[in-house]
């Protein structure tokens, strides 16, 4: 029974520092190699070879890029606000690299000194920590755009912040349905409740997942939502004036946001480190590491093992890598939105849908509780059906060209042509911005 005690004392301190450093290093490495993967996959989609000169298959390319960026000249516009120009990238990269800390990445690891949880910081506010930090990420963008004293950069920074705050609402609301099923905000509980239900939440909460996916793409400013750095309009947006490693810091921030979002999708909706089957279940319950409850409600002890930790780590990695791939795939599949379309989608489609969906899920759960259906497979199945209906409604009936105006409006007899009407007041001073 010694093995099942949580780790404590000096070994716990060592484990804590070790986990922090390991996760930080892993994040930086994954970010570096995601940049290579992005170029390789882009090349593959476009039927090119991609980087293949530095090292075998171009594997040393990220290192070469890093060295190049370190040695490049830094430019700074003479009219820039020097202090905030330098602080901008730092304010961008710091929140981006610390958000991943609350994501559990493998089953608990048994060691001779006790069981080590495979999560950097199992804090009681879990998901809220991620939301809080992502709302702080806005400052880096808007300040670097503002301090550059460049019109493109300034507009890019403004657009980025307006877009991020708009989609943060939808992101938060799509998480609410997950919290209902998990009954807690910590991600360890989210993983555990998915094991308990026998369903990954992507099925009973399918519409929630779709809303989360869309908002996560918008939050990370990736295509089709990369309005802040739309090359055809804004050069490269808020980092137009940045070069050398300062530019790289924005780059690292963007990719680690992508990594965190992918890890979150895997954790919230695809079971996290959980692999199909009940053999790897493990959760702390009143000081015991348990694998579940038997029919009478008594806890069953879990059997952690190092190979389970390794397998679940691989499973978590695979799921995360899949979503990273999805990011790149979507980039080369969908064209960019117009800015008014982005804002309309956020406020007029995502927000009302997410609100309605939250109420539908809660009503379903309460009805199921009323019928005394216990939390498990049947429970999940009913929710899957209800959410499936909502998803079908969302995908096929909701918009169909009514709310978001398309690039070209098809002529329809029954509908007046919708054109943006702007009345210019001759005497009024011109308002810039868009």
């Amino acid at each position, binding site marked *: 029974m010694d093995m099942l005690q949580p780790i404590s004392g000096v070994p716990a301190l060592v484990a*804590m520092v070790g986990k922090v450093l390991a996760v*930080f290093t892993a994040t930086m490495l994954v970010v570096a190699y995601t940049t290579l993967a992005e170029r390789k996959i882009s090349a593959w989609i476009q039927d090119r070879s991609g980087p293949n000169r530095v090292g075998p298959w171009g594997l040393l390319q990220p290192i070469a890029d890093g060295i190049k960026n370190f040695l490049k000249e*830094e430019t700074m516009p003479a009219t820039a606000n020097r202090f905030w120009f330098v602080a901008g990238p730092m304010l961008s*990269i710091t929140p981006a690299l610390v958000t991943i800390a609350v994501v559990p990445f493998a089953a608990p690891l048994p060691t001779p000194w006790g069981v080590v949880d495979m999560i950097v910081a199992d804090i009681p506010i879990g998901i809220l920590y991620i939301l809080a930090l992502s709302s702080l990420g806005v400052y880096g963008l808007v300040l670097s755009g503002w301090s550059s004293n460049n019109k493109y950069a*300034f507009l890019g920074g403004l657009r980025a912040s307006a877009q991020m705050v708009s989609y943060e609402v939808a992101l938060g609301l799509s998480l609410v349905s997950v*919290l209902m099923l998990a009954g807690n905000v910590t991600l360890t509980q989210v993983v555990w409740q998915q094991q308990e239900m026998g369903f990954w939440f992507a099925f009973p909460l399918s519409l929630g997942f779709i809303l989360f996916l869309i908002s996560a793409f918008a939050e990370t400013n990736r295509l089709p939502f990369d309005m802040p750095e739309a090359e055809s309009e804004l050069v490269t947006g808020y980092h137009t004036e940045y070069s050398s490693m300062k530019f790289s810091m924005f780059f690292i921030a963007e990719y680690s946001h992508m990594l965190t979002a992918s890890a979150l999708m895997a954790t919230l909706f695809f079971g996290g480190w959980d692999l199909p089957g009940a053999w790897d279940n493990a959760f702390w319950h009143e000081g015991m590491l348990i694998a579940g409850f038997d029919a009478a409600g008594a806890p069953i002890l879990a059997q952690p093992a190092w190979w389970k930790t390794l397998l679940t780590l691989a499973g978590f990695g695979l799921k995360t890598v899949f979503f990273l791939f999805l990011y790149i795939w979507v980039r080369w599949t969908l064209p960019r939105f117009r800015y008014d379309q982005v804002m309309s989608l956020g406020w007029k489609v995502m927000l*009302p849908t997410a609100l309605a969906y939250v109420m539908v899920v809660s009503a379903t759960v309460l009805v199921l509780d009323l019928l005394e259906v216990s939390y498990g497979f049947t429970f999940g199945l009913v929710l899957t059906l209800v959410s499936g209906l909502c998803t079908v409604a969302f995908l096929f009936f909701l918009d169909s060209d009514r709310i978001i105006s398309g690039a070209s409006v098809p002529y329809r007899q029954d509908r007046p042509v919708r054109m943006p009407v702007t009345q210019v007041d001759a005497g009024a001073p011109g*308002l810039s911005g868009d």
Partner: protein
Amino acid sequence: MSGSYAPLLILFGVSILNAVGIAVATHIVNPRRPTPQKDMPYESGMIPLGDTRERFSVKFYMVAISFIVFDLETIFLVPWAVGMRGLGWGGFVAMSLFVVVLTLGLVYEWKKGGLEWD
């Protein structure tokens, strides 16, 4: 409980060090050969006209206000979602009322054109 935040303090320290370290290292290593052209804000090769810091559209202000309101709504939804199954139908009715009130606000804003971007 607040002890569980300790690794976060370390992680924050590490990533702040990382950010400052990158900035300082690149400042030391890279060459600087400024010319008047390089120091100009980049506007696609044109000589910049006018000032950047014009007053900008009030739409951004509307976005920020709407964000605060609906962010607060999300935050009120979170504890309810967590405790929903314990609170039962009483909580559901209370929350429905709250959501309806704010949906009225959203509808009003929509009809008034506060969500338009053109």
